């Protein structure tokens, strides 16, 4: 690796390889940049905007911005942390995220980021949407009111499972998770409970129908460790991070 392939991230010199984004380089260097829609195994989406950084006068998404030599990147600033907090609060207001009864509580990346960014209230008036739930699949239950439209399930389904079942449809606040089947029901697709797409959701939108609430309080991913320490983990990914 050439010494020329370096940039500055919050004053720390970070090496990168050609073609890498700021997020990929930061992850390889062990630096946590807050994010929700990014996953190292899949193409970048750039939709949640939680990974925004300052780059020489511009605000860009670290997951889509190519790393370049001698860039000066700022991430951990009060202004950006405040902006991330507002983005998280918008997501809470846009869906129905009731942590006290959600089975993903303690393992939820949205909740973990909210704690990490010091969220104490919604800030924005909640939309309180009433989107269609889908229990048609024998092994999976879909709660669209918890979807944050990160499209990780769509990318996992298309890029890893080779099925392209999950996708987003609609525009603006009418955007929602849909399934490619004549009826629109997940139960009418060939989705499997073992598909990567069924286990990639960072929140509590795609749920298994068995084994719910099996993890006691105190043993869940973020019960004792903040997300900036252990990363955007999923239950199936304990031991690794993204």
């Amino acid at each position, binding site marked *: 690796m050439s010494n020329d392939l370096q940039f500055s991230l919050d004053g720390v010199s970070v090496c990168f390889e050609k073609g890498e984004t700021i997020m990929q380089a930061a992850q390889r260097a062990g630096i946590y940049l807050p994010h929700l829609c990014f996953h190292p195994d899949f193409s970048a989406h750039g939709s949640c905007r939680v990974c925004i950084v300052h780059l020489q006068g511009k605000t860009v998404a670290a997951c889509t911005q190519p790393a370049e030599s001698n860039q000066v990147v700022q991430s951990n600033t009060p202004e950006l942390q405040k902006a991330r907090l507002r983005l998280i609060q918008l997501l809470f207001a846009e869906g129905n995220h009731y942590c006290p009864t959600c089975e993903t509580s303690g393992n939820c990346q949205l909740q973990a980021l909210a704690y990490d960014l010091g969220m104490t209230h919604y800030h924005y008036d909640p939309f309180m949407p009433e989107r269609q*739930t889908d229990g048609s699949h024998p092994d999976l*239950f879909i709660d669209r009111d918890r979807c944050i439209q990160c499209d990780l399930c769509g990318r996992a389904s298309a890029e890893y499972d080779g099925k392209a079942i999950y996708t987003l449809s609609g525009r603006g606040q009418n955007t929602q998770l849909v399934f490619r089947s004549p009826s629109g029901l997940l139960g009418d697709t060939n989705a499997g409970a073992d598909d990567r797409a069924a286990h990639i959701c960072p929140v509590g939108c795609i749920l298994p*129908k068995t084994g719910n*609430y099996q993890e006691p309080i105190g043993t869940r991913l973020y019960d004792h460790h903040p997300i900036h320490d252990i990363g955007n983990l999923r239950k199936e990914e304990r031991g690794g991070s993204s």
Partner: protein
Amino acid sequence: MNRRVVIDPVTRVEGHGKVTLLVDENNQINEARLHIVEFRGFEKFIQGRPFWELPLVVQRLCGICPVSHHLAAAKAIDQIVGVDQLTEGALALRKLMHFGQVLQSHALHFFHLAAPDLVFGFDSDIARRNIVALIQNHQTLALQGVRIRKFGQQIIEAVSGKRIHGIAAVPGGMNAPLSADKITPFKAQVDDIIEWCEATIATIKTLFLSHRDYHEAFGATESNFMALSGEKGQLELYHGDLRIIDRRGNEIRRQPSDQYRALLSEQVKSWSYMKFPYLSHLTPETGWYRVGPLARINVCRYIDTPRAERCRQDFVSTLGAPAHSPLAYHWARMIEALHCAEAIKNLLHNPALLSNDLLGQGTRQQQGIGVIEAPRGTLIHHYEINGQDQVTMANLIVSTTNNNQAMNESIRKVAQQHLTGKELTPELLNLIEVVIRAYDPCLSCATHAAGKMPLRLELQTSDGKIHSALQRNSDGRLHNAG
């Protein structure tokens, strides 16, 4: 012209209520109405949710007895996943947390809410009739109460991860066993808890008998009683048949608890969100009944822990069977607390608490009915689901609802006994609160701010005009607000 007397809100009960006394031209009370004006909507908004969420969602009904709602829902969804028989470990864990629940709730009610009335007297200064004054003047009793409650809460926390609104019961079982290191501290404390509960029963008996005639007659009204009953008629808090006795103590119905619909009907009245259940084979006027500690002690034939059984026998030999005085609820409540403490001690030595065999399996059903004895009485959860595992119907008959008519009857009795002329007095207001409090109603299923909440007494004519009003402010001072 008829007059209407309104007490709003009622204090030192769980949540807020409002009382209206309907008085005729001769100043006779012809009806008492305890209004329940909060609307929760749980039965509606859980529709569409996946059934396995039920124990987590419905326990949010209450901050005092969430474990009871958690377990009633869990018993219902056990049936939905086709599990008729829990594993020994799961059953032991559920019973342990339930005994902890009943113990802590009874301790909260007796020591924090009711004891100030009983110890200082119903007519004592309202400003010092509270738990703080109890601690100052009867430190040993008050601190024992605090510790009994804490013990129960810690039991709940050990099993479910939190003292309030934890996660424990899952479809067909429990999610985790206890560990030996969690059990050890409880073994060291439980004998003290048992001693303190028994000593408190002796205190209640002394207080009750100190003005026996007054206490026995206070708000007394004869009724039927309903409670779960064990196979041999023993006191049962977790699972059993629904047994109903009449006002003389004769068994009039005994059926499996999932057949509650054959036993009970519900009447709706325009002035309250709380329904009025009654025995289906009788009329609403004759078929109302009472639940809760007094009902359970009246309904059971014995208690299967020795100290509580001795205390029950003493209770029965003193007050007769069945006992009807609302104030006897306090006595019965602490007998149950003692039973819970003894039962917890027995369970702490049960190795099943450490078992990892916690989940049963069965064939999916479309409905489940969970019935449990919550601290305040029989609690019924009934759910139906569709083929997509979503809740389509929920019917919750909570303990306080079962006591709805009974509370109205006792209020009417107290008002008849103590309303003199046209004068609305703070003393009458206090006495009505005392008799409501005996039932330990959970009016909004919310946590409670102990002490001096504002209280307004109104005298209304039948056309709705306020004739006069007396208000008690949060600092305890009274002023004429008419």
